[in-house]
């Protein structure tokens, strides 16, 4: 389950109004999500939640579900 | 074959079949080409060794490098091999190659047919400057490794490949291209009658290159490749005769500084002396043509033009006449 807060951050960064983000969604399928915007999204997520990711953790992310799980782990 | 899978068997069979078919077709095209065209007359007469089998009935064979390819004469009639033929009345085969070095000479010997009776003379030009050390390394395989590897080969597999490749004229790029456009080989571009002192800075530039590459030392390079050559020729029934060709001392005095000129002349003279001694010690016959050409007989430091070639040819003809009885 992707939280609305996370969805909002991602969609704002990509300047998208509506897009279905599920656990299994990968970056390639989302319009505008390339390597440049990827780092912007990560930075925005960190700023939104006040957390910091390690480089290795970011590289390991395979899909949006992984990102949500990572955020949850950092907040816990 | 039985153990191989279907696909593999099919591929091998098809591959062999296509290989043989392609070879046969190419052979056919080559045969047609050879019939329809007198391709030999279109080729470079200065590279005869590479495309013409050396006739078994030659009386004289010229072996050597750029000094004897007659670059600086008007037409093939004035080329050294033609002049020598006229003077001696014998059959002369030109087996020289531009820029050849000792490894190339040895390869050339491999192309000569074996003679039953010793009688055919092989003249080799050796200029004394060959033994002055230079500061670059000459390739160990000679300057025609590609060409010779397609003509002579050691080892069974290579020899088999060469014998397969040889009849396929149609794939010999040089031969075919020479037949497409009629080329002038004499009196064109830099290769024309010229005299060093009356021809701009052609000879001067060459001499400056010479000075750049010659090492300042009194040592001399090895001469034992000559004995190796003699042994190889003896085995095939030929007589090796070294022709010591002249060096343009007039040019040296003109273009080198005063002191430098003396040093060069001394070193060249010593090289010549050492060469002659070496030949005498090893019982190798020779004709000494040093000083045969006058100032107008040279195109540059070591290459003679028609005038110089004639003088050298006369001396060689004199040798032939002298040894006719033997």
């Amino acid at each position, binding site marked *: 389950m992707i939280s609305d807060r996370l969805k909002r951050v991602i969609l704002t960064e990509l300047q998208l109004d509506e897009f279905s983000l599920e656990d299994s969604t990968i970056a390639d399928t989302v319009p505008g999500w390339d390597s440049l915007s990827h780092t912007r999204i990560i930075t925005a997520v960190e700023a939104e939640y006040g957390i910091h990711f390690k480089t290795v953790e970011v590289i*390991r992310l395979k899909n949006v579900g992984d990102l949500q799980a990572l955020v949850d782990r950092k907040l816990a | 074959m039985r*153990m191989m899978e279907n696909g593999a068997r099919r591929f091998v069979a098809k591959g062999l079949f296509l290989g043989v078919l392609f070879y046969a077709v190419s052979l056919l095209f080559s045969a047609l080409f050879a019939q329809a065209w007198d391709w030999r007359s279109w080729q470079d007469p200065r590279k005869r060794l590479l495309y013409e089998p050396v006739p078994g009935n030659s009386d004289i064979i010229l072996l050597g490098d750029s000094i004897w390819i007659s670059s600086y004469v008007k037409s093939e009639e004035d080329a050294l091999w033609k002049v020598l033929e006229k003077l001696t009345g014998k059959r002369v085969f030109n087996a020289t190659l531009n820029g050849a070095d000792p490894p190339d000479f040895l390869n050339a010997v491999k192309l000569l047919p074996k003679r039953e009776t010793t009688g055919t003379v092989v003249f080799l030009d050796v200029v004394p400057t060959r033994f002055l050390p230079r500061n670059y390394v000459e390739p160990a395989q000679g300057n025609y490794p590609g060409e010779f590897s397609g003509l002579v080969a050691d080892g069974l597999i290579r020899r088999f490949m060469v014998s397969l490749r040889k009849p396929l004229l149609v794939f010999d790029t040089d031969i075919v291209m020479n037949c497409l456009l009629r080329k002038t080989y004499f009196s064109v571009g830099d290769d024309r009658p010229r005299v060093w002192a009356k021809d701009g800075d052609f000879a001067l530039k060459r001499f400056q290159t010479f000075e750049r590459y010659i090492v300042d030392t009194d040592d001399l390079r090895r001469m034992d490749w000559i004995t190796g050559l003699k042994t190889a020729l003896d085995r095939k029934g030929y007589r090796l005769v070294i022709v010591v060709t002249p060096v343009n001392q007039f040019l040296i005095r003109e273009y080198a500084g005063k002191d430098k000129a003396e040093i060069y002349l001394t070193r060249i003279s010593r090289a010549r002396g050492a060469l002659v001694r070496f030949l005498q010690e090893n019982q190798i016959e020779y004709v000494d043509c040093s000083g045969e050409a006058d100032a107008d007989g040279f195109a540059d430091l070591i290459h003679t033009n028609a005038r110089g070639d004639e003088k050298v040819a006369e001396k060689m003809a004199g040798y032939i006449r002298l040894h006719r009885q033997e």
Partner: protein
Amino acid sequence: MYFNSLAFGVFLAVVWLVYQFTPDRHRWLALALASLGFYASLKAPLLLFALGLVAILSYALGHCIARQENDALKLRLLWVGIAVNIGVLCLVKYLQPIAGVLCPSLVPAGRQVNLFVTIGVSYFTLQAICYLADIYLGRVEPERHLGRFALYLGFFPKLLQGPIERAGDLLPQLQAPYRCSYENMRSGALLFAWGLFKKTAVANRLALYVNTVYGDVHSYGGVSLLMATYMYAIQIYADFSGYTDMALGVARFFNIRLTQNFNSPYLATSVADFWRRWHISFSRWILDYIFRPLQVLWRGGGNYGTAAALLVTFLFSGLWHGVAWGFVIWGLLHGTYLAGSVFYKPWASRIAQRLGFQNHPVRRVVQTVVTFHLVCMAWIFFRAGSVADGWYVLTHLLGGVGGYLAAAFENLRHLTQHKELVDPILLGKTLPRFLLLLASLAVFGTASLLRDCIRIQARSAWVRWPAYYLLASATAFLGVYNDVGFVYFQF
């Protein structure tokens, strides 16, 4: 043993025949021994030792990483693996030049550093690193069989010049049982023949001209320098893609599909696109294992962080090709192009969108031409004998070109009579030689264009066999087989 040598042909035939008769469970051994023999034929025992060391250590570390539960230790093991491989790479590649500087007496004078010989190491060490990284990231399971793992690293078709294979792509193929496929054999043979043509008839022939000019840049004017640079761009593509095609073709004989390394690189519309089409396996490697981590690490810097990551990535690329300033400059140029585009591209797209020619075909053409020239500019430094030479070429490229073009137009009909117009193009070689070069390029161009239109394998034998014969004849006739050019002196 080069692919275009008689010895390799014999070697391949023998290995393939033995492979057919080997029982399935020992087939990996046949290929491994063949690869060993292939590598040994280079007569550099240090390389065999490096391959063995990398194989054993990477195999062991792979299992350690997979089994390690603790995240921090897992990462540390990965770093050890990376360090070992980079260490071996640096040692082998840079040993001789470093020794030459530190203790010149140890390095015999005049002995050539065989760049070709060290390239094998550059490839399998990178492949080992990506294997370990993929295990760490959970993308692939470690290979159980040490022999098969060593084969994965040292498989002879890809040993010398890649492609760099991902574990997920190659390992399963090595594990699969083998059934000889006639289709694979046929397409493999055709691919090999095409690669051979590209290497001997196009690349080697262009080299004759390029070597003349780049070997003595000060003797040539702008037109010649320009021509030689364009020729080099084609030469290196034909050379590298030709070699890769031969590798892919040979691998197909064993039912192994290696990754495509090239995809019409000079049709790229941007330098970024170029790197998605040139040496694909290598650029994917540096993208995944150097650029992405750095970009994430430096995300605080925004676009500047990305730009810096690109510069470092391509600096690595330059150094990986060789220890010479020319390669470094080449790498940094590409890094600069890409870093620049990070800032330039969004702005340019916005303008194009606003003006409405975002997808205009002319824009694509302009982009392609500009990209090609940027890449050529970088090739100058890659090829030039020294940085000074490269700089000379760059600054004198356009010298006299305008005047030349004007003069050429005026005398178009009698061009061959004007020596001063013809010489800069012939570069001191004869007209027939130039015509041969044009013929090679014509065959290359035509066949490349027709390849996709005419699916040659689908046609009947009446079409296929003459086509094969034409290719074989073109290779035999137009191919350059002796070592290009020689330096001789008769003064």
